[in-house]
C-alpha cells in the first residue's frame, strides 16, 4: 500500500517549526547525508536514527526495536525508558534532543506544550488502523475530542475483576455468569464475606482499583448517557452523579467490612498476622478489582497459585445494565510523534509498531512466546507487564490468548473475558484534556475518598460542584490546547461552547 507521505511530512514539519522552537529536532538526522529518497511505501531510504521514549519493560522494547530495524535496515532505533515525563521531556526540549516518538502517562503535559504533532493524515489513510478496537476507532481515543489525531494508544491493559474459584467453592457459593452485572458482583462480594470467628475472615473484595473508578464507566446504558470517559464524561462534559453512586457503594462496602485490608497496614497485620502480606496471596478473598497485570506478573507465574492455594479466573468489569457489549475502564498509555521530528512518517511507523499496529504486535508475540528471553530481573517478558492487543486481528488474538491458561476448566473464562474487552475507555488522565488539572487543583484536594471511606461524607453532596469543576477545567484545557494559542483546530462554535463553560463557572 502507498502511504500518504507527502501530505503528512509537510504537515508535521510545519508543526516542528512552530512548536518546538529551540529544539534541534530529535536525535534523528541522516547518517551520511539526506537524499530525500523514499521506497515504494514512502519510507525513507536514507540512513536515519529515531528515538522512542516509553514506559515499558526495557528488554521488550529493545527487542521490539530490533525487529523494527530488521524490517527497516536503514533506520536505527534508540529507546529510552522515561523516568519522569515532564522532567525528561522539558530537559530534552531544552537540550535539543527531543525524542521522535514518545509515550505519555498523562496527555495534558504533551498537549499543553504541543509536543505531539498532528498525525491525522497518517492515521486516517492507514488501512492498518481500521483494525483498531471499537472504542479507539469510534471514540477517537487520541483525538482528544477534536477532529484531529494527536496520539494513538500504545499500551493497553483493561480493568479486570478476578475471582478465586477456590474461595467460592470453600464458601459453597456459585460462580457467577461471565457476563454478569454490577449488582451481581456486589451481591457476590457480600455473600463471600464470611466470618466463622475462628481466624481469618473471608472477604468478598480485595481492591487495587476502587470500585467507584470502575463504576463511572459502567453506570448506565448507552441510551441513557453515552459515557466514554471517567466521571461520566460523554465527550462533551462530565456528570459525576454516576461516580457518586459508585463511590457511596464502595465506601459502604469498606465501612461495613466487606473489603480486605491493604498491604503494609495494621489492619493487614491484624487479619493475616503479617504486615506485608498482599490480600491476593491469602486464599481468603473471593473477588479482586485488580490491575490486569496482576495475573501475568504474579498469579500467572509458575507455582504461585499452587503455593497460596488459589484458582484465579478473570471476569469482565460488569456493567450496571445487562448489556453484552459495554465499555470498560482501562489503562492506556498514549503515544505520539514529536512535533520536532525530522522524520514524521517513519516516526509514525515506529510508534505504530511499538504500540497498536498488527505487524508490531506479531513481533511482540514472537518475543513473548519465547520464555527463554528474560529481562534484567530474570523475568520472562510475558510476565513483565505484557499489554493487551489493541488490534482486532484474529491471528494476533489467537497467539495472544494461547499464552493464557488453555485447560478446559479455565480457557472458557479467559475466552469470555477477552471477548468482552473490545471497548476500552482510558482513565481520564490519558485522554481527557484538563483532567489532570481538575484532579490536581480540585478533586484530590477535597479528600473525598477518605471522607466517604470513613463514613463522614456522602459523595452525592459533592457531585454537582465536582461536575462543574471538571467541566471548567476541561473547557479551559480545550481552549488552551486546541484553541488559537494552541493547535488552533477548534471551530468558532466549539470555541464558543467551551468559552461559555469557562465563563459560567462559579455563576
Amino acid at each position: 500500500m502507498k502511504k500518504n507521505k507527502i501530505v503528512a511530512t509537510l504537515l508535521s514539519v510545519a508543526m516542528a517549526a512552530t512548536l518546538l522552537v529551540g529544539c534541534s529536532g530529535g536525535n534523528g538526522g541522516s547518517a551520511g547525508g539526506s537524499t530525500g529518497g523514499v521506497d515504494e511505501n514512502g519510507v525513507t531510504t536514507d540512513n536515519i536514527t529515531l528515538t522512542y521514549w516509553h514506559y515499558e519493560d526495557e528488554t521488550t522494547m529493545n527487542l521490539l526495536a530490533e525487529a523494527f530495524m530488521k524490517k527497516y535496515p536503514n533506520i536505527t532505533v534508540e529507546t529510552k525508558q522515561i523516568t519522569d515525563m515532564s522532567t525528561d521531556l522539558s530537559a530534552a526540549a531544552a537540550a535539543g534532543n527531543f525524542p521522535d516518538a514518545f509515550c505519555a502517562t498523562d496527555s495534558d503535559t504533551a498537549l499543553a506544550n504541543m509536543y505531539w504533532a498532528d498525525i491525522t493524515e497518517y492515521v486516517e489513510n492507514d488501512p492498518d488502523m481500521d483494525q483498531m478496537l471499537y472504542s479507539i476507532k469510534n471514540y477517537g481515543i487520541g483525538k482528544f475530542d477534536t477532529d484531529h489525531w494527536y496520539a494513538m494508544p500504545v499500551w493497553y491493559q483493561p480493568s479486570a475483576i478476578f475471582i478465586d474459584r477456590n474461595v467460592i467453592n470453600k464458601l459453597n457459593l456459585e460462580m457467577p455468569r461471565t457476563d454478569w452485572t454490577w449488582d451481581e458482583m456486589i451481591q457476590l462480594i457480600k455473600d463471600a464475606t464470611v466470618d466463622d470467628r475462628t481466624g481469618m475472615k473471608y472477604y468478598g473484595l480485595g481492591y487495587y482499583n476502587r470500585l467507584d473508578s470502575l463504576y463511572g464507566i459502567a453506570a448506565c446504558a448507552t441510551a441513557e448517557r453515552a459515557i466514554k470517559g471517567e466521571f461520566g464524561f460523554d465527550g462533551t462534559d462530565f456528570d459525576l452523579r454516576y461516580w457518586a453512586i459508585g463511590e457511596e457503594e464502595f465506601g459502604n462496602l469498606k465501612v461495613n467490612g466487606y473489603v480486605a485490608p491493604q498491604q503494609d497496614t495494621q489492619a493487614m497485620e491484624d487479619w493475616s498476622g503479617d504486615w506485608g502480606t498482599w490480600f491476593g496471596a491469602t486464599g481468603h478473598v473471593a473477588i479482586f478489582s485488580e490491575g490486569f497485570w496482576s495475573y501475568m506478573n504474579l498469579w500467572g507465574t509458575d507455582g504461585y497459585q499452587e503455593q497460596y492455594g488459589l484458582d484465579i479466573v478473570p471476569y469482565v468489569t460488569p456493567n450496571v445494565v445487562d448489556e453484552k457489549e459495554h465499555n470498560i475502564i482501562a489503562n492506556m498509555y498514549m503515544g505520539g510523534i514529536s512535533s520536532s521530528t525530522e522524520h514524521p512518517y517513519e516516526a509514525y511507523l515506529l510508534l505504530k509498531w511499538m504500540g497498536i499496529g498488527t505487524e508490531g504486535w506479531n513481533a511482540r508475540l514472537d518475543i513473548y512466546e519465547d520464555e527463554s528471553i528474560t529481562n534484567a530481573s530474570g523475568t520472562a517478558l510475558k510476565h513483565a507487564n505484557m499489554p493487551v492487543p489493541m488490534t482486532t486481528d484474529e491471528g494476533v488474538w489467537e497467539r495472544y490468548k494461547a499464552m493464557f491458561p488453555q485447560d478446559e476448566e479455565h480457557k472458557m473464562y479467559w475466552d469470555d473475558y477477552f471477548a468482552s474487552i473490545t471497548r476500552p475507555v482510558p482513565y481520564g488522565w490519558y485522554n481527557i484534556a484538563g483532567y489532570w488539572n481538575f484532579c490536581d487543583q480540585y478533586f484530590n484536594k477535597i479528600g473525598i475518598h477518605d471522607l466517604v471511606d470513613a463514613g463522614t461524607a456522602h459523595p452525592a453532596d459533592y457531585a454537582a460542584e465536582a461536575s462543574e469543576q471538571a467541566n471548567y477545567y476541561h473547557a479551559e484545557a480545550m481552549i488552551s490546547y486546541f484553541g488559537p494559542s494552541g493547535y488552533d483546530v477548534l471551530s468558532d462554535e466549539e470555541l464558543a461552547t467551551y468559552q461559555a463553560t469557562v465563563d459560567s463557572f462559579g455563576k
Partner: protein
Amino acid sequence: MKKKFLSLLLTGVMAAAVLAGCAKEETPAEPTAEPAVEEPAATEEPAAETAEIPTDYKYYFSLDGGEEGVHMATKGDGATIELTGKDPVYVTGAKGQGLYLDGTAGAKLDVNGVGDTYSVSYWMYSSRNAQHMPTLQYGPDVHGDATGKEHWVNFTWEPFNPDDTTKTTFPIVWSYDQATGGDRMYWYPDWIDNRTGEWLNITMTVDPSEVSADGSMIIAHLYLNGEEVIGTSSDGDRPVQVVTGTMTPSDNFDFLLGVNYWDTPFKGVFDEVYVYDRVLTAAEAKALFEAGDTTAKFEAPERVVEIVKNEAALETVGTDDLSMAFWSDWSSAIPLKDGETKTIVLKNYSAGGNAYENYVLDFTNQPHEAHVDPNTVEGNTEYVVVRADEWAWIGDINPDSENAADYFESTHSWGNWPVWQQSVMVDATVTLKITRNGSAINVVADNVDYNGESNLMTYTVKQTALTDADDLYVTILGEHCYIEILEINDPIAVDENALSAIGNIDLTCGFWSDWTDAYAIKDGETKTIKLNNYSTGKEDYHNFVMVLTNKETVAHSAPADQFPGEYMEYAVVRADGWGWGAPEGDANAAPDCYNIGTKYIGDNNFRNIMKAADVEIVATRNGGEVTLDMTYTSKKTGDSLTESYVLKNGNMAADSEMYFFFTNEASYVELLSVE
C-alpha cells in the same frame, strides 16, 4: 493503681497459625515484575580484613537491658516526640539481648552530636516496613523545633529505586538540611527489596572532607552486614551522600530508634548501637557485623497490657483484676430519647479469654443508679441487649423474637476474631454512637486498639415492643472486663433562636457545603460574634471557618454563585489557626502568615474543647486590616483557648466593601449574635 496482665495470644503466633507457608513471600499488587533482588554491590576495594570492634566509641548501647539513656518514645499529636516513661522491653538480639519495639513506640537514646566526622552503627530486625518508617534517625534539629529548620539523617524505606517506584527498598539513606533550602537528598541501593525479616547491621561513616563534586554534600560510606554498598544518590552520583552537619552537637539533638515526628513507627528489634567521632575503617565495620549473629531467632515478646486507672472516669464497671462475672455490676442507666443519638466513650480492658468477655449494652425502660441491678428496679423491662462481639438478643416481651433475621442487622470491619478478642479488646478505647429511632436501636461501636487501629461494629436491632412513647435507657455492663466510662455526650441541643445554623447535627457535612448570611464590617468597626460550635473532635478542621469577602451573600447558597464574576475572598481562617486566601504573589500568601496566635494542629485539648464550644470572636477592622481575637470555651468543662489573626492583603483596602460569613466541615455551627 496499675494492673498488668498478659495478652493471651500474640500476633506473631497468629501469623504462624493462619498463614502457615505463605507469610514469607512479598506479593506486591503493583504493575511490575517481581523485583530484582541482587546482592549488595561490593566496592572494588580489596576485601577488608576483620579487625576488633573499636572501643573508642563516644556512645555505645548494648541494648541488653538495664542501661541508662534509653527512653521509650512515641510520636505525639502535633508532630512531637513524647517520652512514655514506660520500661523498655528486651528480647533476643543479634548479640545478647536487643530492644524490642512493638510498632507503637520507638526509643530516644541519650546521644548528642559528636562533630562532623563520625560513624554510626546498629543492628536491626524489622518485622514490617512502610514508606518513611524510621529505623535510626538523628540530627541536631530533626523537627526544626530549635531553628525552624529540619536537619537530619534517616535510614528508612522508600520506593526511590527508579527500576520500580512501586516498591519500598531498604536501606534508603535520606538526609535533609532545610536551612540550606535544598532538597531532601536520598540514596538508594541497587536492589529492590525491603529487607524485612532478617538481621541487618548498618554502619555509616562520614568524613566532611570527602565532598561531592559540587561541594554541597558529604560522600559517606555505608556498610551493610560488613560490606560497603555503593548504590545511587538522588542527584545521580553513585556513592552515598548526606547533607552536612548531621552530627553537630545541639541542645535539641535527637537520636531516635524506630520513631520520628511524622511516620509509622518501626516494629522489630534494635541492637548494638555505636557512635564514634571518627571514620571507621572497612575492617572495623566488618568487625561490628561479625560480632552479631544473623541467625538469632526473632521472637516478639508477650504483650503486657497495663491498666492505668483513669481518675477522671465518670463511672467504672467491674474491677481491674478483670474478675467481674456477668450480670454482677452495672453503670447507671443513661437515658436515650426517641430520635436521639448519644455518644459514649469508654475504655474496655479485658483478659481476652472469650469474645463475649467485654462490654455489654442493656437497653431497658427504667432509670437506676450505678452498680444497681436493673432487674431489681420495679417495672423494669429489658428490650434489647447488644454485646461488643457483634451479638444481640431481644427480650422475651417480643412475641416474634424467634424470627431473628427480621430484627437484627450487623456488620464488623475487623478480619480476625482471635486478634480482636485477644489483642484489640484487651485495651480498647471505645466510642459508642447509640441512636434510637422508634422501635429501632442502632449501635455503632468504634473499638480503637493500642495501635490506634479502628475496629468498627454496627448493630441495628428492631424491637417492636418498644414504641416512641416508651422510656429507654442504656446500661453498660460486662464480663471479665473492666470498663471506664469516660464521656457521655448528650446530643446537640439545637438553639432555635440562632440567627443561622450550618452543617448538620450528625456532624457529617462536607467542607464548603453550607454557609451563614454575610455581615458587613466597616472601617473602624468592631464586631463581637458569638457561635455555638459542635464538632466530631476527630480532626482539627472539623469546626467553623470564617470567610472575609467583598459581597453580602445570603445563607445556605454557594457564595460565589450569588455574585458571578464579582465575588472575591479576602481571607479564610479556620478555628485551628490555619488560613489562606491572600492573592498570589502577596507577601502574606503563605497561609500561616495570618495567624499570630497558636496553631492547634493535632492538639487533642483543642479538639475536645471544640466538640461543644462557646465561641466568641472580636473582629476589628482598621483600614484594610482585620484582627480577629477568638475565644473557645468548652460547654462541658469551661476550659478556654484563644486564637488570634491579623488579616490583610492587597485586595483589602480601607474603602473596600467587606463582609464575613461562616462555613464549616463535619460540624454543626450556630451563629448566635453579631453585635
